[in-house]
């Protein structure tokens, strides 16, 4: 069964790599405007972009090459596992992705862990005492947090924990605990939703016949919850958090900008502005693969948690 999951996912990964890379190539090539000018602006900046700079770029990068030839070059390079070099920095795309994606994953994993730490206890407590004061207060808090753009949450945390109580740096990376505020901002936004998912899942489990039966046969509340509740309520929550994690890695541009965090969302946005096609293809491809990898992990985790799918 595990083998089948892995083989399926591997095939899926190959198709995703080709599909995402090709699609981003086609989309980038079909955008209006002269690519050479965009690349020149990305390279030389607004003070130094001119028709001459664009011509320079066109010659150096052979941008006049027909699109199908450029695509074939990319495809051949990909078969050699070579993502090419960035049109802006001239550095290998793989190095830039390592730097940026590495930081994004670090932030996303920290955020999802913090979110889990908040969502599980609070969600379970709310579920166990549904419609109690804690449940109602948390519903209000979740709605409030969810209604805020994550950027505003980040700014609030900076004002509180970097300016008023200067415990953490306002922005930056690579200095120890400067991930705390950006990760917390993301975690609060995530936990606002996932705590409700945990709460609903808990509520569903504790009202299920098997749970009631465990209580009737004499198990204590804690024993019942540990043996029959926790595992059952985890399945939908793990699947949900897997999706949240993927969304985090690709969609945290605002937090990266606010905290000067060198993530892939920001890198990708800038690559699109300056038509850095190899960088866009490489990034999209890596994110596609990451999506497949995370889905696989979620499948494996659910497989481990839930014995019902396993062969007899």
């Amino acid at each position, binding site marked *: 069964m595990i083998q089948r999951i892995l083989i399926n996912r591997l095939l899926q990964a190959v198709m995703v790599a080709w599909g995402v890379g090709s699609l981003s190539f086609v989309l980038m090539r079909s955008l209006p405007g002269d690519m050479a000018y965009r690349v020149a602006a990305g390279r030389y900046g607004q003070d130094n972009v001119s028709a001459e*700079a664009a011509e320079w770029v066109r010659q150096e990068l052979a941008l006049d090459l027909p699109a199908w030839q450029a695509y074939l070059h990319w495809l051949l390079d990909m078969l050699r596992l070579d993502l090419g070099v960035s049109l802006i920095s001239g550095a290998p795309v793989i190095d830039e992705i390592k730097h940026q994606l590495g930081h994004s994953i670090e932030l996303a994993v920290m955020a999802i862990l913090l979110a889990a730490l908040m969502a599980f206890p609070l969600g379970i407590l709310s579920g166990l005492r549904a419609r109690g004061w804690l449940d109602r207060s948390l519903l209000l808090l979740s709605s409030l947090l969810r209604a805020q753009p994550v950027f505003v949450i980040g700014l609030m945390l900076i004002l509180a924990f970097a300016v008023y109580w*200067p415990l953490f740096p306002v922005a*930056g990376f*690579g200095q120890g*605990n400067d991930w*705390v505020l950006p990760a917390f901002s993301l975690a609060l936004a995530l936990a606002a939703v996932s705590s409700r998912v945990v709460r609903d899942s808990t509520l569903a489990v504790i009202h299920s016949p098997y749970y009631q039966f465990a209580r009737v046969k004499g198990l204590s509340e804690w024993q019942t919850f540990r043996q029959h509740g926790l595992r059952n309520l985890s399945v939908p929550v793990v699947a949900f958090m897997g999706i949240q994690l993927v969304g985090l890695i690709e969609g945290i541009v605002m937090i990266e900008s606010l905290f000067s965090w060198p993530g892939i969302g920001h890198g990708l946005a800038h690559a699109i502005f300056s038509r850095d096609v190899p960088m866009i293809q490489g990034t999209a491809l890596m994110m596609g693969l990451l999506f497949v990898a995370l889905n696989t992990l979620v499948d494996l985790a659910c497989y481990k948690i839930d014995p019902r799918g396993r062969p007899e």
Partner: protein
Amino acid sequence: MCYLKRIVCFGLLIGCLFSPSVLAQPANNHLTIGGPFEFTTLNPSQNGYVFTRMQVVETLVDVSPEGELLAGLATHWDVSDDQLSWRFHLRDGVVFHDGRVMDAASVEQSLSHALQQHGPLAQAPVERLAVDGDALVIELSQPYQLLPAVLAHYSTVVISPDSFDDQGRITRLLGSGPFKIAVFAPPHKLGVERFEDYWGQVAAIASAEYLTGHRGESRVLQARSGQADIIYTVDPASTGMLNRVSHVQVQSDLIPRAILIKLDSGHAFLKEVEARQALSLALDRSGIARAVLRAPGSEANQLIPAPLADWHLADLPPIERDLQQAAALLDDLGWEMGRDGVRVRDNQRFSLNLITYADRPELTVVATAIQAQLAELGVEVRVSVTNSSAIPAGHQDGSLEMALIARNYGFIADPLGVMLSDFGSPQGGDWGAMQWNNTDVAELLKRLEGEMDADTYHATAQRIAALLADELPLIPVTFYTQLTAVNQRVENFRFDPFERSYYLNEMELSQ
């Protein structure tokens, strides 16, 4: 018991992770700088300004805050009578960060590299470079008095031959400045350390760090919290917050950059100078300066700001908003007010597209203010925000009607370089005139290229400035004021209007 242990371990781990950071406060002899611009590569032709500002690399010629050319890595230079051969005498005792001594051959290698890249040196009429003893000789195909100013540009920095790989690509940046690179983490972080063997004033600061801050809000909060010692390009709206704290001072400096409306002077609606004058008169520059840019007094009455004295008309009166006169000018040209509030002539509505770009956030706000102000005159402006490359692209394919731009006249220390590219040919320039049928300015500029006499240069530059102010091939809006937040622990801070250097080696940090 097992559960208890796990809980205790987990608690300890969380405690460690969240312990307040000592790094939230600046280290004693370490300076932290923040600014909005990113960098992606070590190549000086692309991101050289970051490395000159952080004083990692230096040029043959230096520039004073007043725009005078000073000795840099060259102590002096002379030019042959025919003005075709320039000899730059190099400074003794200059050592690169790898310990190599600078000689004429290393300068030649650096400049040869710059010649093969996009930049002002590649556009100069350079025939060849030659080494002559301790001097570097540059042969030109035609007189070009801009050469020393071009050699002060960040793309012409001198670096050690060890900076290049076998294929001539720059893989390390080994300069000669008072700081050497310690951390290069594009696009956000550049860390530098003091270079003890610097030929000039050795820095008192042990190390410094530049951090890109994309959001104005977080840059300001970095200054306020004390995490950053110096923040460049402070958002004008945030100065109030910084003025309320005692440990930060906000410094305001005029820089040689201006916000201008570039327009197609060949366009059917804009080809008469009176039409351009009407648009200029309809602008409420004071309102824009006060309410949008929060820099009262930065209203522009001409293209080039005061720090570039040769090109600035000191006696030119400010352009006050005069809607009546503007309307009269358009009335005389046959533009009648239509029923929808937009003027009409020959069944054509006075409606134009104005493009601008998001690289400078203030431009989009100013563009919409202009849109509202011109609407009062009966001129419809459709604003679209795009990429800075749309300006040269629109100029080249003729699709540009109007564009709101921020032009840096200090890009080369002598504004003649920018003026030549903007007005030096009948076709105008990507960032300058467009279809403006005036050959006088182009001829005068051409003459200045070989002009060595300072008085004649000044007089001609003033004449050109007057012609541009009268004819309005570009409409001036405001000059730029750069706001910088400086922590009080930084001593000897000074600002370079040409943004070539942060003068880190002159600064000291009080404990």
